[in-house]
């Protein structure tokens, strides 16, 4: 069942002539219990899309349905079942941790909010900080507080914009596990943005890649990385480095070398051919590493194309 359905969504800012299209006719859906990554370079339209989904910005055209209901006509009903956390949104800094969470417990009309918050602050390791003022928390503690707020109403749909931006690796791991557990046990649907590609690969079931307001790719993280044909072959030569360089030059490989190491950018299917040529030339390497493309490579390629265009 689709928890979120976006159809032909467009958002234009400014006058019709000379204005700016932040989101350009995008359509996607999010299923129950699915984690969907929304990726793209700065200015791709991710945040505008999230703002529209939260009802903070009105779309120019297009339809947004959540839980089978049109958003505008059912705003309260829908927002009660969803929540969000974003790196650019804070909580009142002169309130204590528990005061902030109680406020949002009441705003979302959570039945047993005091008990629920006590459990949450323990899970996010904030229990000892509950009586601290928000402005005395570190950035990592603040991020955990924002996540507590995001989970306070047990949302069916969660929008997370860079949720682990300021977290230590161990706490990031805790947060990722928490999200994955929620998805598994409570079928929470998550729309997730992050600049940490390894994180996206780890937790997202599917990724939508936005560029200049348009969806340029939609696939699983692994599927997207498969679209990158090139990989990197790292070779170490104790001897014959010069000969190896000459061979690569003759065959017009794209490579760079530092000390005893040569790094070759090559199509994945041509790695065998390269190794065969080295073998025929009796050039022995002491070590070889083949770096397969990652989501980060896909991200960089899209940005590179953007800059070239």
């Amino acid at each position, binding site marked *: 069942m689709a928890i979120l359905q976006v159809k032909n969504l467009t*958002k234009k800012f400014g006058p019709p002539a000379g204005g700016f299209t932040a989101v350009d006719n995008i359509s996607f859906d999010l299923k129950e219990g699915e984690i969907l990554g929304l990726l793209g370079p700065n200015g791709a339209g991710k945040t505008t899309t999230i703002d529209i989904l939260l009802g903070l910005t009105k779309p120019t055209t297009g339809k947004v349905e959540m839980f089978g209901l049109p958003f505008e006509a059912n705003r309260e009903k829908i927002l009660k079942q969803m929540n969000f956390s974003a790196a650019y949104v804070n909580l009142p800094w*002169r*309130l204590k941790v528990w005061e902030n969470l109680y406020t949002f417990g009441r705003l979302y009309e959570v039945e047993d909010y005091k008990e629920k918050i006590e459990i949450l602050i323990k899970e996010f390791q904030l229990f000892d900080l509950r009586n601290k003022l928000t402005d005395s928390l570190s950035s990592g503690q603040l991020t955990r507080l924002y996540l507590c707020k995001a989970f306070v109403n047990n949302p069916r749909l969660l929008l997370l914009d860079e949720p682990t931006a300021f977290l230590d690796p161990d706490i990031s791991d805790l947060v990722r596990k928490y999200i994955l557990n929620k998805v598994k046990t409570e079928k929470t649907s998550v729309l997730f943005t992050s600049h940490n590609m390894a994180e996206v690969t780890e937790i997202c079931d599917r990724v939508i890649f936005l560029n200049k307001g348009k969806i340029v790719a939609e696939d699983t993280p692994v599927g997207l990385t498969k679209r990158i044909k090139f990989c990197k072959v790292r070779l170490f030569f104790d001897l014959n480095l010069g000969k190896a360089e000459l061979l690569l030059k003759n065959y017009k490989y794209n490579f760079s070398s530092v000390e005893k190491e040569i790094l070759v950018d090559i199509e994945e299917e041509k790695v065998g051919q390269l190794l065969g040529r080295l073998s025929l030339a009796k050039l022995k390497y002491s070590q070889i590493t083949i770096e397969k493309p990652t989501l980060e490579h896909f991200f960089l390629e899209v940005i590179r194309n953007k800059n070239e265009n």
Partner: protein
Amino acid sequence: MRIKRIVAVVIRHLYIWPRSPERFMWTFGWPFFGLLIWGLTISFLQNNSSSNFSFITMIIGGIVFWEIIVQPQREISINFIDEMWNKNILNLFASPLTKAEYLTALVIIGIIKMFITVISLTIGSIVLYKFNIFASFGLHIPILFINLIIFGITLGLFVNSLILRFGISVQEIAWAIVAIVQPFSCVLYPLSSLPVWVQRISVVLPPTYVFEEMRRILFSNKIEINNLIFAFLLNLLYLVLTIWFFSVMFEKAREHGRLVKLN
């Protein structure tokens, strides 16, 4: 309208009150200093005057009544701005909270703070000047208060609408608007003492009628209720127009992406 959500916003602002020295000053400090300075000045002038006319009641009455406008206006506007300073405005409007619930909460906070200020000023004026506004205005208090409260609310919502339209850069108006309106509202002097062009502005401001009637009660113990009914109708008109203006500006802010930029 959900009471629970209105209460959530009211409590959120009451939580920070005890730990905000500037807010204590707005509610207690500055109004009390005004009472002290004006009261002592007028007492001095009164003691050195041969007139039997009681300036002190007129001025103290004006000061206390003026706070009935100032407090709701300031609370409605500053609490709205406070959400922007805290980068919390998106959290609120991305929650099920509606515009009407949010404004209702701001109005409730404004009225609570207004009563606290008025009660503290009343105690101060009884102790310092032996002047009790509740005893002096008796049963007329509700209609006088209601007119001033509605005008304060209207000003507060008007400022918030301007912020939605022009952004946080116009926040200064939240402090300035009462100072702009005050000279035209006949708080400390009668309408007839003003130049004609100023009178033309004053007669369309509801507080003018309230302060005129306040003085009439003090000096002749009479009241022209029709003037206060007219002020009430003017107030209702302005309030309805301002709520409509706020609503339009809010939707325009969503349309043009200005709401998210307030954060």
